[in-house]
């Protein structure tokens, strides 16, 4: 049996073990779940060792004499003092460096990218002076850059910001603005739900596509045989569960 065929059987088996959760929580699912965590952690450790220790630290130091790289290694080691209760306070230096630098790097870039640029695009000209007709106002809803849509976006942004940020009592005009904000929010959440459904269904389509592929005779039809085996195992587990009522103590 070559590695790919064996892989198809293993992948199919593990997929079905996870899917068995749809029937109910059971030992087969728990087994696969713990294996998933173990393999993932092992994978991350290996990749981090190979990338950081070998390629970013040891090689540059040995081949190019970049001794300064020992400083981040020392900071990293300080971080690991979290495992030694008496020395755990030393990890604060590492976290202070990471968090301080992260905050410093983020401030100007966030202001520039997400505040100024977004505000700039919201406050756009509501009329255009371009073209031979002089002043124009485009009403095309299907063109997101039309003047009508620019006004709708301005109303949406302002009313949602008002709803979220102004702590004055929402009455009179304020109530109308806040209600407009809620309306916009609901539409956006609805769109978000629609897209979330799309995403989740896509993931299922991906897994089922693999199962269909592995039902091919060239792999020995693991999907068919292992589905039967999983159903059989679930049946046996359910029967054993009925025979041995849970301990009430």
């Amino acid at each position: 049996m070559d590695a790919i065929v064996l892989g198809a059987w293993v992948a199919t088996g593990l997929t079905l073990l996870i899917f068995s959760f749809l029937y109910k929580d059971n030992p087969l699912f728990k087994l696969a779940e713990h294996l998933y965590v173990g393999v993932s952690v092992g994978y991350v450790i290996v990749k981090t060792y190979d990338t950081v220790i070998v390629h970013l630290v040891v090689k540059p130091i040995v081949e190019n004499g970049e001794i300064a790289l020992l400083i981040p290694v020392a900071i990293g080691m300080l971080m690991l003092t979290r495992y030694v209760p008496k020395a755990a306070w030393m990890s604060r230096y590492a976290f202070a460096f990471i968090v301080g630098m992260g905050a410093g790097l983020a401030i100007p870039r966030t202001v520039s990218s997400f505040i100024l640029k977004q505000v700039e695009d919201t406050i756009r000209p509501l009329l255009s002076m371009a073209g031979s007709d002089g002043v124009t106002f485009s009403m095309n809803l299907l063109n997101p850059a039309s003047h009508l849509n620019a006004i709708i976006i301005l109303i949406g942004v302002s009313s949602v910001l008002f709803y979220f940020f102004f702590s004055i009592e929402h009455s009179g005009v304020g109530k109308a603005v806040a209600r407009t904000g809620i309306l916009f929010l609901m539409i956006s959440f609805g769109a978000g739900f629609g897209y979330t459904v799309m995403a989740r269904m896509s993931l299922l389509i991906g897994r089922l596509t693999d199962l269909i592929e592995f039902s091919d005779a060239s792999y020995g039809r693991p999907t068919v045989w292992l589905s039967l085996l999983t159903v059989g195992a679930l049946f046996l587990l359910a029967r054993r569960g009925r025979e041995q009522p849970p301990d009430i103590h």
Partner: protein
Amino acid sequence: MIFLRRQLPLLITLVTGLLFAAQYYVPHPASEQMLTSATKWLQIVGGFALILGVTSLFHQHAVKIRRQEAGWGYSLVLYVGMLGTIAVGLWTNGKESVEGTMTAFGWIYNYMMVPLQGTMFAILAFFIASAAYRSFRAKSREAAVLLVAAVIVMMGRVPLGEYLIPLSGDVSSWILNVLNSSVRRAILIGVSLGAVALSFKIIFGVERSYLGGGKE
């Protein structure tokens, strides 16, 4: 000792924070060189942080196995999976493929990790359907608006929906590009303002939770 344990870390945060915020506005070669070196350091320290994050599981499951607590067998599976992956990974120099040929580490990744992780998230499809059936009810006007928007977008983003109701594609595109954009923009501006405020609080030592608990 209090200086070393409490004030020095806060001082490091203050200095690095202000330094790198100011660096953005100083494009001098020396300042740029400092940014290059410091971000390289941050890359390396980031690797250690990742290890710190994932290895916290070690202790928890080791205790379970040692005391043979309920479900210790699963913890053993976790350990076997982890140690097996590490052994194979180190043996293949952490490479999933060499010159296009899959290694044993690549095999574990492709035929164990990918289906396990993929399926773990794929089962959410079933639960979102069940949740939609159980709780997506037009109990108020707002809920009705949300529901209608969701249905339009769900119709408009698939070929069958566009085929059955040709207008749904254009309407969902308008909802996403205009109505949704404006809301997400307001949220983005708000969240960014909050993030900037939090960054300042961290730099000036008002927010200190990142230092962790423990003795002074």
